[in-house]
C-alpha cells in the first residue's frame, strides 16, 4: 500500500523538475505552501515599511522622510497587510486545511485554485513594481475620492498601480472564495454533516460568502475610479455633478465585511487550537458557529460607522451605531466560549497554545475599543486618530496575526513534516507580545491627546514625545520577534522531516494522515462518525473516556482512515483515485490578466500612452488562448497508472 502510494506520486510528477513541479502544481497543499511563503514575504515587506514609518515618527519634526514618501509608505503598509499578507495567509490555511479537514482529496476546482494563487502573486508583484517606477500608491489603503479619482490631485501613476493591482488581487480572492464555497458544500467526506465540520471549515465557508458578497462592491468602485482617471468620467467629481461620498459607501460596504474576512478565519484557527491543547472539545460549538454567521450577517449592515463624521444625518448615525454595537454580542459569545473551552481542561503551553491564548485578551481589547467608537459622539473625537490605529492593530495585529502565528506553529508539522523549535517559538512569543503591546497600547493615549493618523510628522509641545518613542521601540522589538521566527524556520528546515502524523494529540481529520500528507491525502476517504472525527477514532465513542491512551497505543495511520476493517479495500480505493494533472494554464491566464492590468497603467502614462491598448490586447489574447487550452486540457493520467 505504501509502495503503491510512492509510485503514484512518482507518476504524478515523474519527469518534471522541482521548479516546474511547483509552478504547475494544482495540489492544494502545495498551493497553500506557496500562499504561505508569498504572503509571508509580503508581510515582511509591509513590516519593514512600518518600521521606517515608526523611525520617522520617533521624534518630533523629523526630516527622515518627505511627506510624499511617508504617504506612500502608509498606503502600501495598509494595502499590503490587508490584501497581500493577512488575507492570503488566511488563504494558505484554507488551502492546506480545508480538504484535509473535510476528508477530501483536493478542492473542487484545482486548476482554478492555482489560478487564484498566481493572480494574487502577480497582482502583488504588479503593486510592488510601483517602487521600481517611482510611482508608489499614495492615496491611503482606503483611497478616498476625489483625491484618488481626480488626476489634478494625484498626478502620476501612483493611484493607477493601486487600482489595477487591487483589481487583480480582488479577482484572485473572489475566485478562491468560490472554490472553497463549492468545496465545502460538495466535497465533505461521508458522515460529515455541516454541524460536524471543524469550526475552521465553518469560518472558511462564512468568509467565502463574505468575500463573494463584499468584493464586487470594491470592484465596481475601483472601476469607477479607473474610468475617472483614464477616460475623464465624473463619477466622483462634484464640479460635474458627481459625488465623492459614493466611493466611501462602495468602499466600506466592502471594507467592513473585509475586517471579518481578515478576522473570522483566525477565530476559526483559535477554535481548533484551544480544544487541542485543553484536551477538551470546543465549548458551545453551535454557538461559536452561529456567532460567526451572525457576525458575518451583521457586518453588511455597519459600513457607515466608518463614516460617522461625513454628515450622513442623525438617523443614519443612530442606526449604524446600534447595528455596530450588536456585533459585539456574537463576538463576546465567541470569547466566552473560548474561556469555557479552557476551563476544566488540561492545558499544555506549547507555542501554538500561547499564541492562541494570548489572542483572547488582546482581541478583547480591540473589541472593547471598537464598542467605544461605535458610540457616535465618542467617534466624533476618536475618528482618524491614533486611538483608531491602536484599535484596529489590536484587532488585526495582536488579533489576526497572533492567531495566524498560532496556526503556523500548530500546522507547520502537517505542512512540512517538521516541528518548529518550541524553545525559539516561546522566545519569539514573548518578544512579539511585548513588542506589539509596547507599539500599540500607547497609541490609545496619543489618540486621546489628539494625535491624528496619516501625519508624516508631528510638532513638539503636544505631549506626544514619550508615547511615540515607546511605539517606535516596540516596533523594533516586533521586528526582532520576526527575525527569531525566520531563524526558527531556517533551523527547522535543516533538520530531517520526521514529524509524526499526530504530534499534538489532535482532534480533526488532518491529524489522521502522515505529515506531510501524500498527494492524494486520504488513501481511503474517511467515514465521519461525529464532530472531531479523529478524536473519536482515537478515544472511542464512549462519552467520557477518562485516561489518555499511551503514546505507543495510538493507532498507526499512514495513509488515511484509521479504521482497520478491510485492509485489502485500500488497494481498490487507490485504483479509483483520480488526481488532477499539473497544468500551465492557470499561470498563463494569470500572466495574461496581469499584462492587461499593466496595459491600463501604460495607457495612463504620458510617454507610452499609445501603447496602452496594444498591451491590453496582447494580454487579452494570452488570456483567451490559455482559457481555450484550459478548457481542452486532457484530464487522463493520474489514475494510479503503474498500480495494478
Amino acid at each position, binding site marked *: 500500500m505504501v509502495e503503491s502510494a510512492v509510485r503514484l506520486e512518482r507518476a504524478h510528477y515523474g519527469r518534471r523538475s522541482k521548479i516546474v513541479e511547483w509552478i504547475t502544481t494544482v495540489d492544494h497543499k502545495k498551493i497553500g505552501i506557496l500562499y504561505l511563503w508569498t504572503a509571508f514575504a509580503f508581510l515582511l515587506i509591509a513590516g519593514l515599511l512600518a518600521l521606517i514609518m515608526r523611525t520617522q515618527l520617533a521624534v518630533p519634526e523629523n526630516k527622515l522622510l*518627505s*511627506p510624499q514618501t511617508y504617504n506612500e509608505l502608509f498606503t502600501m503598509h495598509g494595502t499590503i497587510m490587508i490584501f497581500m499578507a493577512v488575507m492570503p495567509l488566511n488563504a494558505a490555511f484554507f488551502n492546506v486545511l480545508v480538504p484535509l479537514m473535510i476528508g477530501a482529496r483536493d478542492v473542487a476546482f484545482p486548476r482554478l485554485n492555482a489560478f487564484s494563487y498566481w493572480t494574487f502573486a502577480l497582482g502583488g508583484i504588479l503593486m510592488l513594481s510601483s517602487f521600481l517606477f517611482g510611482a508608489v500608491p499614495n*492615496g491611503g489603503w482606503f483611497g*478616498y475620492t*476625489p*483625491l484618488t479619482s*481626480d488626476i489634478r490631485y494625484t498626478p502620476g501613476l501612483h493611484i493607477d498601480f493601486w487600482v489595477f493591482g487591487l483589481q487583480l488581487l480582488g479577482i484572485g480572492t473572489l475566485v478562491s472564495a468560490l472554490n472553497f464555497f463549492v468545496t465545502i458544500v460538495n466535497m465533505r467526506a461521508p458522515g460529515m454533516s455541516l454541524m460536524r465540520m471543524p469550526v475552521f471549515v465553518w469560518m472558511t465557508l462564512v468568509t467565502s460568502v463574505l468575500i463573494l458578497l463584499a468584493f464586487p462592491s470594491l470592484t465596481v468602485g475601483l472601476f469607477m475610479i479607473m474610468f475617472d482617471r483614464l477616460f475623464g468620467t465624473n463619477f466622483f467629481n*462634484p*464640479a460635474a455633478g*458627481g*459625488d*465623492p461620498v459614493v466611493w466611501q459607501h462602495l468602499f466600506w460596504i466592502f471594507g467592513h465585511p473585509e475586517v471579518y474576512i481578515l478576522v473570522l478565519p483566525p477565530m476559526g484557527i483559535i477554535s481548533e487550537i484551544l480544544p487541542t491543547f485543553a484536551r*477538551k*472539545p470546543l*465549548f*458551545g*460549538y*453551535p454557538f461559536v458557529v452561529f456567532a460567526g454567521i451572525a457576525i458575518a450577517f451583521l457586518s453588511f449592515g455597519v459600513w457607515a460607522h466608518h463614516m460617522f*463624521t*461625513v*454628515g450622513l444625518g*442623525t438617523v443614519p448615525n*443612530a442606526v449604524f451605531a446600534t447595528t455596530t454595537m450588536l456585533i*459585539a*454580542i456574537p463576538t*463576546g459569545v465567541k*470569547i466566552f466560549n473560548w*474561556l*469555557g473551552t479552557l*476551563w*476544566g*481542561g488540561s*492545558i499544555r503551553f506549547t507555542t501554538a497554545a500561547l499564541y492562541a*491564548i494570548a489572542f*483572547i485578551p488582546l482581541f*478583547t481589547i480591540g473589541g*472593547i475599543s471598537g*464598542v*467605544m467608537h461605535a*458610540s*457616535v*459622539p*465618542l467617534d*466624533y*473625537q476618536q*475618528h*482618524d*486618530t491614533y486611538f483608531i490605529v491602536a484599535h484596529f492593530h489590536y484587532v488585526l495585529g495582536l488579533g489576526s496575526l497572533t492567531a495566524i502565528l498560532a496556526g503556523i506553529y500548530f500546522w507547520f508539522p502537517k505542512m512540512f513534516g517538521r516541528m518548529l523549535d518550541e524553545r525559539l517559538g516561546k522566545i519569539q512569543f514573548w518578544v512579539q507580545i511585548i513588542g506589539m503591546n509596547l507599539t500599540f497600547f500607547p497609541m490609545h493615549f496619543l489618540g*486621546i*491627546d*489628539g494625535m*491624528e493618523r*496619516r*501625519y*508624516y*510628522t508631528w510638532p513638539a509641545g*503636544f*505631549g506626544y514625545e514619550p508615547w511615540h518613542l515607546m511605539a517606535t521601540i516596540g516596533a523594533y522589538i516586533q521586528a526582532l520577534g520576526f527575525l527569531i521566527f525566520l531563524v526558527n524556520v531556517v533551523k527547522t528546515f535543516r533538520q530531517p522531516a520526521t514529524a509524526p502524523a499526530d504530534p499534538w494529540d489532535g482532534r480533526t481529520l488532518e491529524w489522521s494522515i502522515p505529515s506531510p500528507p501524500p498527494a492524494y491525502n486520504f488513501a481511503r476517504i474517511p467515514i465521519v462518525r461525529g464532530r472531531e472525527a479523529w478524536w473519536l477514532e482515537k478515544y472511542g465513542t464512549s462519552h*467520557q473516556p477518562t*485516561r489518555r491512551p499511551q503514546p505507543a497505543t495510538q493507532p498507526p495511520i499512514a495513509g488515511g482512515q484509521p479504521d482497520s476493517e478491510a485492509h485489502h479495500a485500500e488497494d481498490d480505493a487507490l485504483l479509483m483515485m483520480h488526481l488532477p494533472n499539473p497544468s500551465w494554464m492557470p499561470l498563463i491566464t494569470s500572466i495574461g490578466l496581469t499584462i492587461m492590468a499593466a496595459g491600463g497603467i501604460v495607457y495612463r502614462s504620458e510617454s507610452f500612452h499609445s501603447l496602452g491598448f496594444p498591451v491590453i490586447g496582447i494580454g487579452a489574447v494570452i488570456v483567451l488562448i490559455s482559457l481555450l487550452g484550459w478548457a481542452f486540457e486532457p484530464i487522463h493520467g493520474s489514475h494510479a497508472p503503474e498500480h495494478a
Partner: protein
Amino acid sequence: MAPWLGGVVRVVRSAMKSQAVWRWLRQASIIGAVALAAAGCGVVGRGPASTALPAGDNAKTIWDMFIWIFWISVLVFLVVAVVLTIALIRFRERPGETRLPRQIHGNTRLEIAWTLVPVVILAVIAVPTISNIFAFDRDPGPNAIKVKVIGHQWWWEFQYPDYNIVTADDLHIVVNRPVLLEMTSADVIHSFWPPELSGKRDAIPGKTNLWSFTPLKTGEYQGQCAQFCGDQHANMRFRVIVQTQEEFDAWVKQQQQPAADVSNNPLAVKGQQIFFTPSNGCIGCHMINGTQAQGKVGPNLTHFGSRDIIAGGILTNTPENLSKWLTDPQAVKPGAKMVLPRKLTPDEVQALVAYLESLK
C-alpha cells in the same frame, strides 16, 4: 438560586482556594495601583490638542461619556482577564499527568447568560449615544455666529457672511455663544477638528455640512485637519481664538477696515510694488480687498498682519518666519501649493515682509 448561578459560585469558591490565584490577585492589585497612579500623572491630557481637556460643550459631553464607557470597558476586560488567568493556573497540565479532562460540550444556560449580559451593557451605552447624536445636531438658534469653513489643500478659509470678513487659519469666536459652521471644501475632502472644543466633521467638496458647538472658556485652541488630503495633510492646522464679546467686536471692526495704507513706510511701499507686479505671481492667487489683487486660490491677505499663524498654521506670524516662507515655501512645507514663479532676492523678501506685516 438558578443552577448556573450555583456553578458560578462554585467556580469562584474553588478559585479562592487556589494559592496561585491569590498570589496573582495580589500582584494584579499592585500593578493596578501603579497604573492608576501613572494615570494621575498625566497619561492623557498632556498637550494643547487633547480631548481630555474639553473647553467646548460637545467636547465636554463626549469626554464625560468616554470616562464612564472606559470604566465599563475596564470591567469587561477584567472579567475576561481574571477568568482566563484563573483557568490557565488551575487547569494547566501538571508534569506526568495522564488525566483526560471531562469532555464537556457546552452549557446552554451559560450561553444565554453571556449573550444577555452584553445586551444589557450595550443598551446602557446605546441610550446616551443616540440621545447625544440628536442633541449635537440641534439648531443653535439665531444667536449663533455663522462661519463658512472652506478646506483647501492645505489651509483653512473662514468666512463670516454676517460681518463680510474673510480670514485664513485663525477662527475667532465668542465664549458661551454658539457657533454654526457651514463646512465645505474647495478641492478634496478635509475634516475640521479642534479637539478641545468639539468633535470633528468632514468638509466635503460639493456638499455643505452643518456643525455647531459652544466654547466654554476663552483662550487659543489648536485645530487640525482630520481627513487624509494629500502631501501636507499633517500641516493643515488652524487655531480657534475664543474671545469675550467685546474682544470679538473689536476684532470684527478691525477686520472690516479696508487694507492698511502703507505709504508712510518706504520699505513697505517697495514691497507693495513687488506684490502687485503681475509677473511675480502674488495677485494671481491672493486677494487684498479693494485692490486689483483678486486671486481666489490662496488665502485672502487683507489683514494678514493681524493673524497669529501662517502657512497652514505651521509657523507663527513673525517677520523671520514670513521671510523664511517667502524665500522658499517648498523647503518649509514640501508640496505646498504656494509656488513662486522665480526665486525672490533677499531684498525683495524683506520688502514683501514689511508690506504684508503692515496689513494689520
